[in-house]
């Protein structure tokens, strides 16, 4: 298994280490619910070093990314970050990525851990086939460290170690700065539904950053948080996970990613999506809460009026709501909030109700 620069620290903190896509990652340090609640009410610090970073530079960098991504990057400026999708020729989702323009003709693409190598090869293939000779594509994952600081007091914590006024940093915007005097890029974003920051710095410095943030954040209630709570937090926020809700057979319109798919411009997968839009999609991702007892899990079958109509993509117990929640694919006719479905949990069919997403929305 691959280890991040923080592996030794996780072990020292008593983290339970699991194999996560060939990465040795902490699933929890204490308990999932405690770490979940710490992030919702105070702050949590996450090791995200396993995710991929790809730098795309050169005069044709914008053109390559416009073709590779369904999102229109036309008006994006340095300091703004955007979510985007890499699609295959059939319109299937290869990855959901974040895009940071660094300066003129230079972009940083942040990928999922398991899809990074494939994304890299795919971008190289586009470069070669389309003759984007003036683009360099570099996998800088090994030398890039990443931490997520999430939760309502994360600004107060980070402000202690960042010189610029953070209250001026808008959501989904980035800043090149220093954190604890270590050069870093931060963005106001994350994957938990809370206010928070994603922090990028050199891999060899990320341990110092981790230590400093835990030190400074201690009095604010900051805690290290593992992948277990990361998953319950993102699910409550209605955020999708690559490999659960998305894979290469899933198109943006079937999940809730129509908004980052711009049919006004050309991109790989567009023709297939146009055809699918004409023909209609036969499934839609929805949120549900269990009304009967039980917890639905990935892969469980969904029934309506006795007929199997779909399947669960993610499900868990929501610590914030105190009930079982999940995401499922169902036929579009079943997608209305309030619709009653049944989920086969072991040998029983338990009732659930379709609800609008997200399950949890923070007060601003």
């Amino acid at each position, binding site marked *: 298994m691959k280890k991040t620069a923080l592996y030794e620290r996780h072990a020292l903190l008593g983290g339970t280490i699991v194999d996560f896509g060939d990465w040795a990652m902490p*699933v*929890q340090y204490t*308990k*999932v*619910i405690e770490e*979940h609640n710490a992030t919702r009410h105070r702050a949590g610090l996450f090791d995200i070093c396993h995710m991929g970073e790809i730098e795309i530079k050169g005069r044709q960098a914008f053109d390559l990314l416009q073709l590779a991504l369904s999102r229109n990057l036309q008006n994006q400026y340095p300091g703004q970050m955007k979510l985007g999708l890499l699609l295959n020729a059939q319109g299937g989702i290869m990855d959901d990525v974040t895009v940071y323009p660094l300066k003129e003709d230079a972009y940083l693409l942040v990928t999922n851990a398991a899809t990074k190598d494939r994304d890299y090869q795919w971008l190289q293939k586009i470069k070669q086939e389309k003759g984007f000779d003036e683009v360099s594509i570099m996998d800088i994952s090994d030398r890039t460290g990443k931490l997520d600081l999430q939760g309502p007091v994360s600004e107060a914590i980070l402000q202690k170690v960042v010189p610029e006024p953070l209250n001026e940093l808008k959501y989904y915007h980035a800043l090149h700065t220093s954190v604890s005097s270590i050069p870093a890029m931060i963005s106001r974003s994350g994957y938990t539904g809370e206010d928070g920051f994603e922090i990028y710095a050199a891999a060899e410095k990320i341990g110092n950053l981790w230590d400093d943030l835990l030190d400074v954040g201690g009095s604010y209630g900051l805690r290290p948080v593992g992948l*277990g709570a990361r*998953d*319950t937090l993102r699910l409550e926020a209605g955020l999708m996970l690559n490999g659960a809700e998305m894979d290469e057979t899933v198109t943006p319109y079937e999940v809730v990613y129509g908004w980052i798919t711009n049919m006004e411009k050309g991109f790989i997968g567009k023709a297939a999506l146009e055809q699918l839009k004409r023909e209609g999609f036969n499934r839609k991702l929805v949120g549900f809460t269990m009304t009967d*007892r*039980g*917890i639905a*899990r990935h892969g469980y079958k969904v029934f309506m009026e006795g007929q199997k109509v779909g399947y669960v993509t993610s499900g*868990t*117990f929501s*610590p914030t709501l105190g009930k*079982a929640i999940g995401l499922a694919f169902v036929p579009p006719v079943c997608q209305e909030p309030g619709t009653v479905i049944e989920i086969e949990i*072991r040998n029983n069919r338990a009732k659930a109700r379709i609800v609008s997403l997200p399950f949890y929305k923070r007060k601003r």
Partner: protein
Amino acid sequence: MSKVNPTDRKYSKDHEWILDHGDGIATLGITDHAQELLTDIVYVELPEIGKKVTSGDAIAAVESVKSVSDIFSPISGEVIDVNRKLEASPNLINADAFGEGWIVKLNMDDAAAGSALMNADEYESMIVADRQ
């Protein structure tokens, strides 16, 4: 660190405990070590009273935030009682796996069935071996 495994009961390799009351009835639960591994128990699926189980059958299911685990009965018999408190407070298993967190009571088919299971020392040795 797990609590000490009580010596008044027997243990299975799947981390269930059986307390034989000597009148043909046994109480079944999961060990403190098992609840530590599961963490954060949020739901327990209990069997119907009257259900007949054969040794090795799934008798209940315990869900943590992240996963679901079947509880296998290491003995055969009929379910005569279930711990209804677990419906409202599944974390009783986390708090007191050997006491308040018991799961079911069984009328054993064979009063001596539990004797083939591990005693507390043997079970402790197994956990230690698992950790290494």
